[in-house]
């Protein structure tokens, strides 16, 4: 079966796999806030930090090579290029617009990187457990439903990518790639993709029901360990460091 390698969970023994999922989720939230509130210097440090995590994950678990990742997101990179150009053209001063577009694209790319880091090192079932544990004490919040929805979304995004590849290959095998009209091209892929995705979703829902699906299943055990404490320190240190950098740079 054809397969895109992004946003897939891969079993592994690296440090990112072993960090408590609750800490990883906090990390994601903090990093996202930091990314959109950073100066250039702070952004450079954040990028270096995220790239280091990416390399550590690759070295330890050998699961997402940087080259295959870039290859898989080349469509997204083109999209970022388009955003940058549109910003440049819609700005009064072209260069200023381009620079602002580049900064924005850079931030979006970092978001995709941290999304990849989270999904490739965290089992969606653990994310479900972590979200449920955090939310179930908050009154009036349907913790089970929210946790299940997040976990299912993370589980099925890569399946939609896989489905896209199959539909695209099926279209290309009957010379669909020769079509010049972009609208025809999009409808050739998009309509069957939508149809198969909905059918697949229905089948998976039936499979879940047939196995007694519950919003309150037995959760995975979660225990904080030494490396989680260290992660927590880094988690607290990064926003402080970035705040100081933003203030004094």
């Amino acid at each position, binding site marked *: 079966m054809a397969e895109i390698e992004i946003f897939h*969970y891969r079993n592994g023994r690296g440090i990112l796999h072993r960090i408590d999922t609750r800490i990883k989720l906090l990390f994601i939230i903090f990093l996202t806030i930091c990314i959109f509130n950073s100066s250039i210097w702070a952004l450079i440090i954040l990028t270096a930090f995220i790239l280091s995590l990416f390399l550590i994950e690759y070295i330890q678990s050998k699961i997402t090579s940087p080259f295959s990742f870039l290859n898989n997101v080349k469509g997204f990179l083109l999209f970022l290029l388009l955003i940058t150009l549109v910003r440049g053209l819609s700005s009064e001063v072209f260069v200023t617009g381009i620079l602002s577009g580049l900064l924005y694209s850079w931030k979006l790319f970092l978001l995709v990187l941290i999304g990849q880091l989270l999904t490739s090192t965290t089992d969606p*079932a653990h994310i479900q457990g972590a979200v449920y544990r955090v939310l179930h004490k908050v009154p009036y919040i349907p913790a089970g439903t929210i946790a299940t929805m997040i976990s299912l979304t993370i589980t099925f995004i890569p399946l939609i990518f896989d489905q896209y590849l199959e539909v695209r290959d099926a279209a290309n095998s009957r010379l669909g790639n020769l079509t010049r009209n972009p609208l025809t091209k999009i409808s050739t892929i998009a309509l069957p993709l939508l149809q198969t995705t909905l059918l697949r979703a229905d089948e998976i829902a039936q*499979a*879940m029901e047939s196995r*007694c699906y519950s919003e309150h*299943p037995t959760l995975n055990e979660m225990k904080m360990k030494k490396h989680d404490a260290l992660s927590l320190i880094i988690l607290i240190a990064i926003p402080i460091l970035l705040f100081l950098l933003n203030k004094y740079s």
Partner: protein
Amino acid sequence: MIKKEPLLKIQDLSHKFSNGTVAVDSVDLEIYRSEFLIISGPNGSGKSVLMKHLNGLLTPSSGQIFLEDNDLFQDIGNSRQQIGLVFQDADSQIIGQTVEKDTAFGPENLRLKREEINRRVEKALKDVELLEKRKHRPHLLSGGEKRRLAIAGILAMDSKILIFDEPFSNLDYQGVKNVLSQIVELHRIGHTIIVITHDLGKVLAHGERLVIMNNGRIIHRGKPEDLLCQLENCGIRRPEGDCVESMTWLK
């Protein structure tokens, strides 16, 4: 030998889809404890729709189903735990991100203790010979392995009745043999087995009873050897050979 105590009783069951198609029409069927039942029929004969009722995935337009004398839909959670369904498309049955997580999905929903879940997962994966692949990604398994993973998923729920919807579709020779030997072994250790297939040559020798459906109705039922001559008339390929015992891919 068929035991006389019915485990499942389907009474006058009909299912009509919203577009007016009658998929199942006044079906009466009793399924006995520890029996090996084969349900056959051409495409669109209503076999899969009928089986989805047994798992509570579809509700009948009319009629009733009893599991050990209790209405199946009264306690749907218990019914789904007792009656495991292996889907035709094994890919659509995969929910977990690793083989062991997928197997644990059912027991986790039953809210069993973690130690019990781990014990059941290990036993189920051992039974289907996938224990060494417990950390693998299910989507990357072979067709036969995916089918065996689906079996492990329902074994871990401790289901008594196992329904296999076209279990040999899209499998190579070895895959069919592996899945078939698994099904035969599950029957041997006491599970009630229902196999839905139009490909009788692979499995007929193991069936104790054969039910043939067409246009949503049961048109024949009885011992496989008694129905051999009816198969071609019902749009089902008659397996080669004169004796039913030879109609298997397990030699």
